[in-house]
């Protein structure tokens, strides 16, 4: 069974099509693993065996009819930020404890069985930071998620359960969401591959809103090849249900995987832009602390290998990127304070037990239902949107957001993709930054700029540090250039084996 655990999405699909194993057998196997998982990746009540096996039987019936869809019957688990009809949906919050959604998120539908979906079988729901706010998964109201590489460390966040489950081979793939780095950072910390597509590629319908101008869904798996397969099914126009869904036909993101780097660029060889600010060991102008030496070293080694495969390195400048932390936390908090106003104890979720009047009910319900980080962001958001402060904070942040986006626009004149670190450190110890929100925010310095610009970004494993913790490299592409990112990542994974490394004890 060892081999089954380590098999990727593409391999499992192959075995299903060749009738070596059935979808029911596969889901039995992975469901058992998920329920026995020791890392807290899954929500305790995030399972529905009956629904899982019903989906698996439907997939088997389609396979028997000769349906050869590339993901049919392969198990997947969903971050608990996507609403699901057959599974509880909590967003990692007490506010939604026991909530049953009347519908499935579009991404869940696109990947799932029936309704023209890809036919993947849902194993269960994955733990995450409350309302996807956090970088360590410590903000979940339900349980701590442990990093499979070292159980005393965080898995990253907010898609921490997704990253840990995939890294521990509990499932071959998972969905994640990324608002300021929530796919890329946990992927990096757990040594897996994850991609956030261009803003608007994946429908946000049924993805519980945190910051609507930033939220994007994406796949997390153990190779770029698997991510490409998953992304191709996840992304499709959803014009009637998401006003920001891009009106672009479905794309086969696997189509360019094999392109050699010497011809992958717009003018011949792939040009990789290395931000001057991110490669000097410090973030020069920012307050963020130095990058771990082992991270700089592993990334420059990875870049050398890409060079040897035909890519060229060019230095680029992102002069406003260091402002991404205040800009992001103002904009995201403002949007969060507005989005989360719907949790008022009336239509769904928690309600306080004995309110004296309506206003008291709102206040007590919300204060009881939300955790500290969510309360903090609602407060910051309400403040920067309030009369007298709107121009100085919210509007100013939106103007600098454009400057950050313009930096990328200029940079992509000189290069095809941008490469750099995902985070300044590897996964830190549980509890290390739990009481210091600003320290958590600072760790997001390298993922926030692409999020603000709406650009696609991914993380691929490039090695381990001295403590045997995984290091990820970030690749950022121009708008709609996901297939190029996946191409570069796949070419790298063809000549290296970092992505195949497993944490000790993972069987």
């Amino acid at each position, binding site marked *: 069974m060892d081999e089954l655990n380590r098999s990727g999405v593409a391999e499992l699909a192959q075995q299903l099509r060749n009738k070596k194993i059935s979808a029911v057998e596969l889901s039995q196997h992975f469901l058992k693993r998920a329920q026995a998982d020791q890392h807290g990746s899954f929500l305790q009540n995030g399972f529905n065996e009956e629904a899982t096996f019903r989906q698996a039987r439907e997939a088997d019936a389609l396979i028997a009819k000769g349906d050869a869809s590339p993901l049919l019957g392969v198990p997947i688990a969903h971050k608990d930020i996507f609403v699901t009809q057959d599974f509880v949906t909590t967003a990692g919050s007490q506010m939604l404890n*026991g*909530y*049953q959604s*009347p519908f499935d998120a579009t991404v869940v539908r696109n990947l799932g069985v029936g309704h023209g979906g890809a036919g993947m079988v849902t194993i269960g729901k994955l733990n995450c930071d409350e309302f996807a706010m956090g970088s360590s998964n410590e903000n979940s109201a339900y349980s701590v998620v442990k990093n499979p590489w070292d159980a005393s460390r965080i898995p990253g966040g907010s898609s921490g359960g997704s990253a840990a489950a995939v890294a521990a081979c509990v499932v071959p793939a998972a969905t994640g969401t990324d608002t300021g780095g929530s796919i890329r950072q946990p992927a990096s910390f757990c040594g897996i591959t994850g991609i956030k597509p*261009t*803003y*608007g590629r994946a429908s946000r319908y049924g993805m519980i809103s945190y910051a609507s*101008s930033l939220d994007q869904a994406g796949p997390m798996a153990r190779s770029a090849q698997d991510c490409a397969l998953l992304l191709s099914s996840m992304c499709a126009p959803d*014009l*009637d249900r998401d*006003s*920001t869904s*891009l*009106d672009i036909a479905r794309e086969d993101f696997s189509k360019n995987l094999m392109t050699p780097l010497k011809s992958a660029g717009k003018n011949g060889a792939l040009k990789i832009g290395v931000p001057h600010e991110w490669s000097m060991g410090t973030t020069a102008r920012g*307050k963020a602390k130095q990058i771990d030496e082992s991270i700089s070293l592993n990334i420059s080694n990875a870049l050398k290998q890409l060079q040897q495969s035909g890519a060229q390195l060019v230095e680029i400048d992102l002069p406003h990127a260091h*402002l991404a*932390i*205040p800009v992001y*936390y103002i904009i995201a908090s403002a949007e969060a*304070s507005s989005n989360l106003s719907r949790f*008022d104890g*009336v*239509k*769904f*979720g928690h*309600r306080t037990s004995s*309110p004296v*009047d*309506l*206003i*008291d009910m709102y*206040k007590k319900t919300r*204060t009881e239902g939300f955790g500290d980080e969510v*309360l*903090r962001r*609602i*407060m*910051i958001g*309400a*403040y920067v949107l*309030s009369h007298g402060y709107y121009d100085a*904070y919210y509007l*100013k*942040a*939106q*103007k*600098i*957001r*454009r*400057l950050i*986006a313009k930096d990328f*626009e200029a940079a992509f004149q000189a290069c095809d993709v941008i490469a750099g670190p995902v985070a300044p450190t590897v996964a830190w110890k549980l509890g290390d930054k739990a009481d210091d*929100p*600003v320290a958590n*925010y600072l760790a997001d310095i390298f993922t926030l700029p692409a999020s603000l*610009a*709406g*650009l696609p970004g991914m993380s691929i494993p490039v090695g381990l540090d001295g403590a045997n913790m995984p290091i990820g490299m970030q690749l950022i592409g121009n*708008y*709609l250039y996901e297939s190029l990112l996946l191409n570069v990542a796949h070419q790298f994974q063809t000549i290296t084996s970092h992505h195949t490394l497993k944490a000790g004890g993972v069987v």
Partner: protein
Amino acid sequence: MSLNPQDIQRIANLARLSLDESQSKRMREQINGFFDLVTQMQDINTEGIEPMSHPVDLMQLQTLRLRDDVASEPNHRETNQRSAPAVERGLFLVPKVIE
């Protein structure tokens, strides 16, 4: 810039939250810590820069669209109210608002 305890109470009221004294104190320290990072924004000249509320306009692919104003979802009142804290005859119940 530094928020005082009254500011925190004012913002909490705007956001419909009720923070007790110790929560308030911690919140004030942490929010002030964050606003220390915000000061670097004020040095940036943003004269003539359009605020960017959305990445879609930068992609120059399309403008945000509105769909036709027609009912597209069937009536799911019962399933939609399944997770409501208090419902009676299809209506959401709240504490009395008019004496």
